[in-house]
Structure formats: structure tokens, C-alpha cells
């Protein structure tokens, strides 16, 4: 019982924190240099890993697609299948999971360390609101960077899928590209991008909240980081289901 109660209290705290972040996000001063710094940190931190996982995901999709569709003689549709899977689903979800592991955990550790070494108290004592100064730039940056990284993932994935589909599975490149064009629509892209935006906000809010409310020294920061990664991963899949359901359910 105590555990369930703690989870609900946690969730309540998280929601209030998100509200507070939103309220401060629209207040001046807008610290553009901090935003750019965070966007660069997330970009530098995550682009490589997102590109590599994207490439391999696309390659696997092409192999699996070819295996399934060849049975119906439909291997020409593999290109469309790979593209739609990446853009609507795998791009946003895998990117969010990668950003959680790479940048989300780093954010929690950094803010958690600042909390337990009283750097956050010190900032408050200087009449600067730490949510405004520390949390807002990270959340805004992650929300902006996630769709960009998601596009990187999907583009690399499509490239990987093409290489495998055309050069390994020997699907003719003409139909491969044609079916991509006829199957992939603008709504697929907006669906994928809106997921990525939501994931960016959710992942960064969880990461910052865990760090911001960390306590209990180095060990507490470690626990907070673990919690941030676990809950972000769960949240990504739950939010993914909800958004997919709203869109096509």
C-alpha cells in the first residue's frame, strides 16, 4: 500500500512540477544562450547513437519486411513498409529511448548533484528561480531537439533499409522508391513528429524532476538517475500507445 501511495504522490509531484515549468517558461527573461547550450548538449550527446541505432533498425525492418512480404510476392512494398514503420513509430520511440539513456540520465545526474551540494539552494539565495534557470532551458531544448533527432533516426533507417532491400534482398530500386512515395503521406509525418515533441517534453520533465527533487548524497543522485531512466522509458511507451490510439484507434 505504501508503495502505491508513493507512486501516486510522485506522479502528483511530477504534474505540479510540469505546471510550474510551463508557468516559468513563458516568463522573461528568456535565456536564449542557455537554451542553445542545452540544445547543443542534447544534439552532440545523442546524434551519433541515434544515427547508428536508426541505421540498424532500418536494416532489420527491411530484412523482416522482405521475409514477410516475399511470401505474397509483395516485396516491392518493403520500401513503404520500412518508411511508415520508421516515421510513425520506430523513429520517435527509439529516439526517445536513446535520448533518455544518453541525455536524460545526464540531466538527472547534473541537477541531482546540484541539489545535494546545495548549488540549487545557492541559486535560490541569489534570487534566481532554479526552475526558470535550470529546468526550462533543458525542457524546451529537449522538446525542440527530439523531433530533429527523430528525423535523423528515420532518415538513417530508411537509408539502411534501402541498402539491405536493394543490395541484399535484391528488390528492384524502382518499385522500392515508388511504393515509399505512394504509401508515406504527410499525416504519417505529422503523427511521428507530434509524438517526438511529446516524448521530448515528457522525457525531459521526468529527468529534470528526478534531479531537482533528489536527496541523500551521491547515492540519492544515483537512485534518482535510475528512476528517471525507468520512468521515462515506461512513459514513452504509454504515451506512444495513447497517441497512436487517438490517431488511428
Amino acid at each position, binding site marked *: 500500500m505504501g508503495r502505491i501511495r508513493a507512486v501516486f504522490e510522485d506522479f502528483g509531484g511530477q504534474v505540479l512540477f510540469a505546471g510550474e515549468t510551463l508557468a516559468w517558461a513563458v516568463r522573461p527573461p528568456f535565456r536564449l544562450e542557455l537554451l542553445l547550450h542545452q540544445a547543443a548538449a542534447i544534439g552532440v550527446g545523442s546524434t551519433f547513437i541515434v544515427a547508428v541505432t536508426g541505421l540498424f533498425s532500418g536494416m532489420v525492418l527491411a530484412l523482416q519486411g522482405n521475409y514477410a512480404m516475399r511470401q505474397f510476392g509483395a516485396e516491392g512494398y518493403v520500401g513503404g513498409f520500412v518508411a511508415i514503420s520508421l516515421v510513425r513509430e520506430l523513429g520517435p520511440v527509439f529516439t526517445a529511448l536513446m535520448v533518455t539513456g544518453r541525455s536524460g540520465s545526464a540531466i538527472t545526474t547534473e541537477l541531482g548533484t546540484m541539489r545535494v*551540494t*546545495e*548549488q540549487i539552494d*545557492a541559486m*535560490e*539565495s*541569489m*534570487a*534566481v*528561480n532554479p526552475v526558470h534557470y535550470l529546468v526550462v532551458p533543458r525542457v524546451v531544448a529537449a522538446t525542440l531537439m527530439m523531433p530533429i533527432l527523430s528525423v535523423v533516426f528515420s532518415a538513417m533507417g530508411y537509408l539502411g533499409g534501402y541498402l539491405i532491400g536493394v543490395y541484399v534482398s535484391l528488390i528492384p530500386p524502382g518499385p522500392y522508391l515508388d511504393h515509399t512515395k505512394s504509401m508515406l503521406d504527410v499525416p504519417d509525418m505529422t503523427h511521428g513528429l507530434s509524438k517526438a515533441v511529446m516524448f521530448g517534453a515528457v522525457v525531459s520533465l521526468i529527468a529534470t524532476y528526478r534531479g531537482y527533487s533528489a536527496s541523500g548524497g551521491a547515492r540519492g543522485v544515483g537512485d534518482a538517475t535510475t528512476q528517471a531512466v525507468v520512468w521515462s522509458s515506461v512513459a514513452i511507451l504509454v504515451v506512444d500507445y495513447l497517441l497512436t490510439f487517438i490517431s488511428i484507434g
Partner: protein
Amino acid sequence: MIRISGLSKAFGDKEVLRGISLDVEEGTTFVVLGASGSGKTVLLKHVIGLLKPDAGTVHVDGMEISALSGRALTEARRVFGMVFQGAALFDSMTVFDNVAFPVRERERRIPHDELLARVIESLRVVDLGEDVLDEWPSQLSGGMRKRVSLARALVANPKIVLYDEPTTGLDPITTNSVDSMIDQAKHRRGVTSMVISHDIASAFRVADRLAVLYDGRIAAQGTPEEVRRSDDPYVQRFLSLWFEKQ
């Protein structure tokens, strides 16, 4: 002025402060003495609203700090500077950016030359030269970190300064210059200071009034002379050990 009345605070079932009342008059220096773990830091954090009391109030210049939150509290903190016991320097910023931080946040359009001059000046007061400007906090010694945090607390010319053990870990000469720094701020700019100290010599040197904290209460409070003559047994024991050595 700072007025603390009936302040109580517990963490779980551990009662740290039990009904503390004291006044710090404007333009004076108030020193808080007490054993390790007696709640001095907890008391100081209430003054700037980093902790909320379970009972009692803290007023600063007539405003009830202990009742404020959010943006109003942030605004109310503009009159303060605070030195943390563990320095609490931002470890992702250089010494320059640390000390410049409170100035930049208050005067967003300050020209760089002027900012640099003010940072150098504040560091000079604590006997640090320009060579430390580009150092990172992790590269400094404990005493240097403490001095940088003193510079950071004073650089924006706050009206009220809270010092949590400003001289712990400093050599006698630097301790002396920190003491005179506190005095100069008082005499030149009418700064109100609240100082937590373990250094009884320096406490009696800088204090206009002082208080000894014991068991969550104030065991004695008054001018240095009054506290010295207090007949509270704890205060006697606390001070006699030190006076014997003189």
C-alpha cells in the same frame, strides 16, 4: 531588520529548533554560536526562505518571508547575499562566472568591462587575484572555494548578508580579513549581517549581539559582554573552554 519569532522546525520526529525568537537590527552584526548539529544552518536557511517553519514566523523588513513562495519569494530574496557552509559554487562555471552570476542576473545589460572590474574587486577583498578567474571550482582548495563564495555573496552589494561559517577552514590572516570585511560592509554600507561561527574569538570581535543555540533553544542572547556574563550552565561551559585558553 530580521525578526524571528517562535520558530520551530522538526525533520521527522527530530525537533531541531523549538521556539527560537531573536531580532537583528538593521545595520548590525548578529552572531549565532552553538555546537555542531545544534541547528544553526537550519536557522539561517529559514531567514532566506529555503526552509519553511513548522511554527513561528520570520519577518525581513516587515515582510513575512516564511509565508512567501514562488515568484514573491524569489523577488524578496533580492536584498540577500548568502555564504553557504560548503561554499556551494556552481561547478559547471568558472570562478569568474560564479562571482559574476548575481550581478548578471540583476543587471542583465551590464557591460563586460564593468562586470569584470566588479568581479576582480570582490575577489581582491578576499585576497584572491585575477589568476583564479578562469579556474574551475574543482581546481581550488577548500579555503579558496570558501573565499570565492564570499566574493559571490557580496558582489551585488546586498543589504543583508547571511554567513554560514565564513571563516571555517581559513588561515588566521584570511580569517582576520574576512572579519574586517564584515565590519566594513556594516560601517560603509549599513549592511545587516547574520554570522554563524565556530570561531569564538572572531565571533566576539565582529558581533554587536550574539546568541548561543543549545538543544533547539537560545541559551543566551545579548551583547558580547552580556553573553559572556550569562549564568546559563551550558553557555558557561561553552565559553569557559575557550576563555581558559586565552
